[in-house]
């Protein structure tokens, strides 16, 4: 998958493994505003619903869903506003 662009060598990680839907999305929604605009957050979530709901949340909130990584699995989200 594509790595983080714009110089984000190591994105901040939010570990939501072991948490059930909708907790990973809630944690993501709380954490992302703490980051500067343009920064990438990697959410680790093993609930299968996260694969659907994190991209859907990005679409609903106008943030960028960057990539899915098999390890974790991890979902990278870029704060756009």
């Amino acid at each position, binding site marked *: 998958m594509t790595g983080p662009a714009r110089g984000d060598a190591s994105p901040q990680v939010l570990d939501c493994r072991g948490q*059930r*839907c*909708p907790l990973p*999305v*809630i944690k993501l*929604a*709380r954490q992302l505003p703490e980051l500067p605009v343009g920064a990438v957050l990697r959410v680790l979530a093993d*609930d*299968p*619903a996260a*694969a*659907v*709901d994190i*991209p*859907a*949340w990005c679409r*609903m909130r106008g943030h960028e869903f960057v990539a899915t990584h098999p390890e974790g699995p991890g979902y990278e989200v870029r704060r756009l506003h």
Partner: protein
Amino acid sequence: MSASPVYLDAASAAPPHPVARQALLAALDDGWADPARLYGQARRARQLLDAAREAAAATLGVRADELSFTPSGTAAAHSAVLGGLAGRRRAGGTLVHSAIEHSAVLHATERHVAGGGTAVAVPVDRLGRLDPAAWSAAVGAPGVALAALIGASHEVGTVQPVAEAAAACAAAGVPLYVDAAQLVGRAPVPAGWSVLTASAHKWGGPPGVGLLVVRKGTRWESPWPADERESGRTPGVVNLPAVVAAAASLRAAAAEAAAEAARLAPLVDRIRARVAAEVPDVEVVGDPVHRLPHLVTFSCLYVDGEALLHALDRRGFAVSSGSSCTSSTLRPSHVLEAMGVLSHGNVRVSLHRETTEDDVERFLAELPGIVADLRAEAGVVGL
């Protein structure tokens, strides 16, 4: 809290049509004997079974000898998939299906793949509509034995382009199986299919009766051990009283279908509009235009689907959900997944002939507060 319950899950099982109840009770007295035997009671049972088959076939516009009754819609779907593949095994071992088929179709597909067959899932768009170009390419590939397409999504209501899909199948010489569980008794089924299934408790018939229709000239071979019942298509003695009730209620439901669709579709429009306007951070899913008249689905951001179902149940509202926390497998609905829409906090509302405008208004009046309370409890307000 003490208001009368509002049942809004017709897509799982519609309340019994009054005609079904009458026919069931009459047939319990008259239709208990084995219709295959050679004495008076059996002949009476045979007459009832033949009449039920004629009535159901006439309602669907097919020949009576093309229609078999099965012990459930699921059994009919399994037979359609596995029998359609078995009958065409010389043509190839590939099943093409949409990504949003009913789990009964997907489980039969898993059986096929476990036995060495292959399956190709054709994607849908954000509204749950089949990708016609991908479908045409998939059914036109070499080695395709059967194609399976749900007529309308039981989870999000999107009606599929069956006629267009059938044309692509015809061009490729591939038979099309249509799962019409949400269409039969509610909306016309487009032509062009070779195999069709339906389920009586979706139109107000009793549970435990499915329909399997195999058009003349279709290569279909029973996947079950041999049995002479139902033209050899489904083993075992049918539940004749339930079959009689299913056929009678199908005729009644089909006769009322256009008027019911005209009554329910605006109520679904109202739910779509009001939920979107009055519940913050909600995603109303499915095609807003090309959809079933009686079904609407939405997802509420940050809300636990199981908690939402229980909260609605406490207020007397019976609905279902595609959220992972409400499923025994703890996986989100494969339909919502294929569409790429929010899967948590998911609610499916499906209306029926007993649903009133007051029922819908009560639901719409109470839903925003229920969602707001759950969000307040979870501490997610303003996120």
